[in-house]
């Protein structure tokens, strides 16, 4: 790792005062100006520094800021948790287990027990993609400000199957899949104060901005994550498929949140993870479910609808069928688990 300075931020305000760029910005302008970036758990940032992809001049540690590691739930305000809540903290929360099953499942299957104890939810939403060309300092790809996408012409078995024209990197967070399915929001705090951004607008597709994955600006940090309350009609499920059962990022993951009136589906949200540069809602498939009793046949129709329009690359055509099958499975799971 390059040598860097280190400072522990005592408060959000001081962290914002001290930082001058996000990690994606630090990567792009690596050579031109000294970057002061924030870290929480550090598991993704240290990886990027070790690979020489970012060379920050100063790390601003957020991990000791009081109050950012709280998790609360109530029937009116829903679930709120600070960016320093670890993945393990989310996984082990009884409230999450009881009310947000898909989120619990996504937490329980992320990374390893060791990393879940370290990695924070703020960091999880801010982490960079895992494309092997992006992660290689030898390849100056589009995401690194270059002009070539090596994945489109090279090895792409784990890459995206939707919107792959600019950069087929997939978003690495499987928790984001579940958070979007629950219609989550992120609170960003910057010099001008706080703003609430729905997760559907928080992530930027590679068409919108290939060099950064979120709308977070140079001096903004995540200060809260909010999910609306659930009710007795809410059913949810999440399933992840990886090359290995543990550690690996998703090849495909799907989260489903249904509102059920008896056997009839009133409302549905279906989200794909590891399918595109952002967690991807499948609205046409959702529409198929709405107002109808959820049978196995209907679940299969919705699943087929959900993968319509996929444009797989040379080596990842298998992911279309995988997503289709997982979608059917996860709809039926959501209906069954109650």
């Amino acid at each position, binding site marked *: 790792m390059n040598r860097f300075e280190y400072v522990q931020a005592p408060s959000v305000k001081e962290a914002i005062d001290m930082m001058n760029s996000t990690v994606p910005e630090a990567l792009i302008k690596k050579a031109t100006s000294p970057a002061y970036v924030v870290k929480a758990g550090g598991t993704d940032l240290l990886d990027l520094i070790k690979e020489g992809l970012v060379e920050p001049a100063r790390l601003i540690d957020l991990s000791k800021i009081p109050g950012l590691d709280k998790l609360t739930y109530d029937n009116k305000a829903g679930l709120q948790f600070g960016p320093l809540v670890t993945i393990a903290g989310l996984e082990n929360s009884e409230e999450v287990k009881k009310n947000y099953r898909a989120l619990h499942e996504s937490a329980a299957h992320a990374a390893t027990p*060791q990393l879940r104890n370290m990695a924070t939810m703020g960091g999880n939403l801010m982490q960079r993609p895992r494309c092997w060309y992006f992660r290689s300092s030898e390849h100056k790809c589009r995401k690194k400000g270059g002009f070539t996408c090596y994945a489109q012409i090279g090895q792409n078995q784990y890459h995206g199957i939707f919107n792959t024209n600019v950069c087929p990197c997939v978003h690495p967070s499987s928790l984001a899949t579940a958070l979007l399915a629950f219609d989550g929001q992120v609170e960003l705090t910057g010099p001008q104060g706080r703003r609430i951004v729905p997760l559907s607008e928080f992530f930027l597709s590679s068409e919108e901005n290939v060099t950064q994955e979120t709308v977070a600006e140079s001096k903004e940090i995540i200060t809260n994550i909010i999910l609306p309350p659930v009710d007795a009609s809410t059913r949810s499920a999440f399933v992840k498929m990886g090359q290995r059962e543990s550690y690996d990022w998703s090849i495909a993951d799907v989260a489903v949140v249904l509102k059920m009136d008896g056997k009839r589906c009133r409302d549905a949200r279906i989200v794909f993870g590891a399918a595109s540069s952002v967690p991807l809602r499948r609205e046409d498939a959702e529409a198929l479910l709405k107002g109808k009793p959820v049978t196995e046949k209907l679940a299969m129709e919705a699943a087929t609808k959900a993968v319509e329009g996929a444009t797989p690359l040379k080596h990842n055509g298998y992911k279309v069928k995988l997503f289709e099958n997982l979608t059917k499975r996860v709809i039926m799971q959501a209906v069954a688990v109650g």
Partner: protein
Amino acid sequence: MKNPSEEQRSMQEEKGVSRRAFLRGAGLTTAGTVALSTGLLSFKLESPVKPPAVLGPGEVAVRFVLNGQEREIWVEPRTTLAQALREHLSLTGTKVVCDRGSCSACTVWLDGKPVNSCMALAVDVAGREITTVEGLSQSGTLHPVQEAFIEHDATMCGFCTPGMVMSCAALLNRNPNPSLEDVKSATSGNLCRCGTYPKVFEATLAAAKKMKK
């Protein structure tokens, strides 16, 4: 008889620097730790005029509790906890393999929870408690999990063993009656290329039984 850490603790309490007070100060900021080592105990984070201290990039003092004893090391902020343990404290039981958090050979406990020491900075653990595989045995007596690993022949090449032992012992701390599934889940981050998992599961379940007696 007191164990060394208790002895040290009571010595400090006599001196008026309780361990608790130290942790509180140092837990807030490593600047606090540096201040402590230079005698500037009055440094306060709340002070609105004083900006937080910027440390490094040269060596800075980091104090933390290692295997029950307070230690101070001088490291650059870029030093990982794994490097600090192996290269600055000569505790080479903690292994570094992938150095990216993928294999968990470097597993230690941070405040009792298993973490990857290769993906934490040494400065991040100031004021906190670290337990390494060397800290599991008590005055020459191996931890029941270590005993069971020997009895059940749970090591093959042995390189993943310290990390594996730390995961299994942490499991028994939080769950004295683990099922096979619990052990599998607890070791799901520990990569063993030899494939000695069945023996690890056997050993851990046996150790759990033994510890209950």
